[in-house]
């Protein structure tokens, strides 16, 4: 089995709201990032993988099995949802023992395993405190510990970095990398921020409006970002000659000069070429630039471009 997840033309709708729409993806072993804006369908995908909900249409296999009404499969999956569900009155260690019980674990082996996972997520020191007093980062770690406890083959981490500060984010990113590299788990991790995922893995799938719009190596995704048309705002003095020069270039599709002549919107088909040639054009026309900024240099615009 080369892929841990295989989805073909999956559709899931909630009443009149579409969660996933003809969604197809192959997730290989290792770490795979699922990237998409809020509401894109990432959480719906995870709920389908864990059998919390069932597909309306399509074919889904997780570790070679159909997940809906398949509790045996859940012994191979560890799930860490994006929302907070931890009982505040429970201590971290008590919570892990509860999770262990749900997985049919008991006795001395459980005590050892709980200590092991607390060590993996660096929570040994705080394990005997009530979880109501945990920081966001600690809550994420203990949730990950709960997902790890039964040594699953596949870990599903839904937005584990949401709401964490940069320091905690780095620690969680390092932890996710270790979960694969050191502990051998296959990991599917979601985020709405591409560069966060990029720090964990190069294997990425982009999801937008319930559809898988692209998947593969991060460099291919980056290429898509630089290749798609950009709207660029340029501000400064003496922009008219620069606009005239730009109109002669094949990569420029349109220019809209502001009435005050101190700014313009340039739409270019090949942004890389535009940015490469800009210094020469500025020097040649003698204009003074104060601001050059792409309005589309983000994932959202790539998504819009990819889905037309």
């Amino acid at each position, binding site marked *: 089995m080369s892929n841990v997840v295989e989805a073909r033309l999956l559709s899931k709708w909630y009443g009149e709201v579409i969660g996933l729409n003809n969604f197809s993806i192959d997730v290989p072993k290792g770490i795979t990032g699922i990237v998409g804006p809020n509401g894109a369908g990432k959480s719906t995908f995870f709920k389908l993988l864990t059998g919390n*909900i069932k597909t309306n249409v399509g074919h889904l296999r997780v570790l070679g099995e159909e997940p809906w009404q398949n509790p045996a499969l859940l012994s191979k999956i560890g799930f860490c949802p994006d929302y907070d569900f931890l009982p505040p009155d429970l201590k971290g260690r008590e919570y892990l023992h509860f999770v262990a019980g749900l997985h049919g674990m008991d006795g001395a082996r459980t005590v050892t395993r709980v200590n092991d996972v607390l060590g993996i997520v660096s929570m040994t020191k705080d394990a005997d405190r009530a979880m109501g007093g945990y920081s966001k980062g600690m809550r994420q770690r203990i949730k990950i510990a709960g997902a790890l406890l039964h040594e699953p083959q596949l870990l599903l981490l839904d937005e584990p970095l949401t709401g964490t500060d940069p320091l905690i984010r780095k620690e969680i990113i390092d932890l996710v990398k270790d979960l694969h590299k050191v502990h051998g788990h296959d990991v599917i991790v979601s985020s709405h921020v591409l560069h966060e995922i990029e720090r964990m893995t190069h294997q990425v799938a982009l999801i937008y409006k319930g559809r898988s719009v692209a998947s593969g190596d991060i460099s291919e995704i980056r290429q898509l970002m630089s290749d798609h048309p950009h709207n660029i705002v340029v501000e400064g003095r003496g922009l008219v000659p620069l606009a005239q020069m730009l109109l002669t270039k094949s990569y420029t599709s349109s220019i809209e000069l502001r009435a005050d002549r101190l700014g313009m919107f340039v739409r270019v088909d090949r942004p890389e070429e535009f940015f490469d040639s800009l210094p020469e054009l500025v020097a040649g026309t003698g204009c003074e630039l104060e601001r050059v900024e792409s309005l589309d240099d983000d994932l959202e615009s790539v998504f819009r471009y990819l889905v037309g």
Partner: protein
Amino acid sequence: MSFNFIGLRTVAAFSARKLLMNRRWMMVALLGALVALVMGYAATEDGVTMDFASELMVLLLLAFLLPVLSLIYGASMIRNEMDDRSIVQVITAPLDRRISYLGYYIGLVMVLCLLITVVTVIGGAAFLIFSPVRDGGLQLIVTFIALQYLGVMVYSALFLFLGTLMKQPIYLGLIYIFIWEGFVASIPGSIGKVTIRHQLQVVGSELTDFGSWASGDWAVSILALVLVTALLVLAGAFVLRQEEVS
């Protein structure tokens, strides 16, 4: 369906703990105090007897406290976990949802039996302390506790099922308790027998000589209550298994 006994035990223990830690215990304490107050005051009436005590306990415990507590705890148990999504931990564990449901049911029954025992002992003690008549009092308290355990079994199954099936189970539960059992059951004829309370009262007639109880075959009533319980638990387990939790 593989049977994960440790998982079942874990769900039962954890859900029972969750119910006990809930702030609803303040309301239970209030209801318990009300029962104790009424029973203590009633015991000071002239010519009070154990028959009177028995009828008072039917009214306060069997007809009111037992179904109301079962509704409050049972209807919200799984529904609240679905609403705040804390059920995710249970449904993403390798535990058949039907087993999980059974765990919730056992946890609910354990907690309600504990609460009912405490309230009945306090209410009964309040009566015995202030009453000049005490013979048979202890036996009456034990009888009512046993009878209510049987009632907890059925009412828990009913309201846990409603809470799993519906988003707003309280309204239907209140209609059942106060309209069906309170009003329809008092209509003369056989329709009044189609209530949990009536069947419990038939069983009660066999357990004690104090008070006036409904007449009927107690063995048939027990069988009917057990059967209804089993059917409701099976139906609830089926509903939870089919339920999509988003």
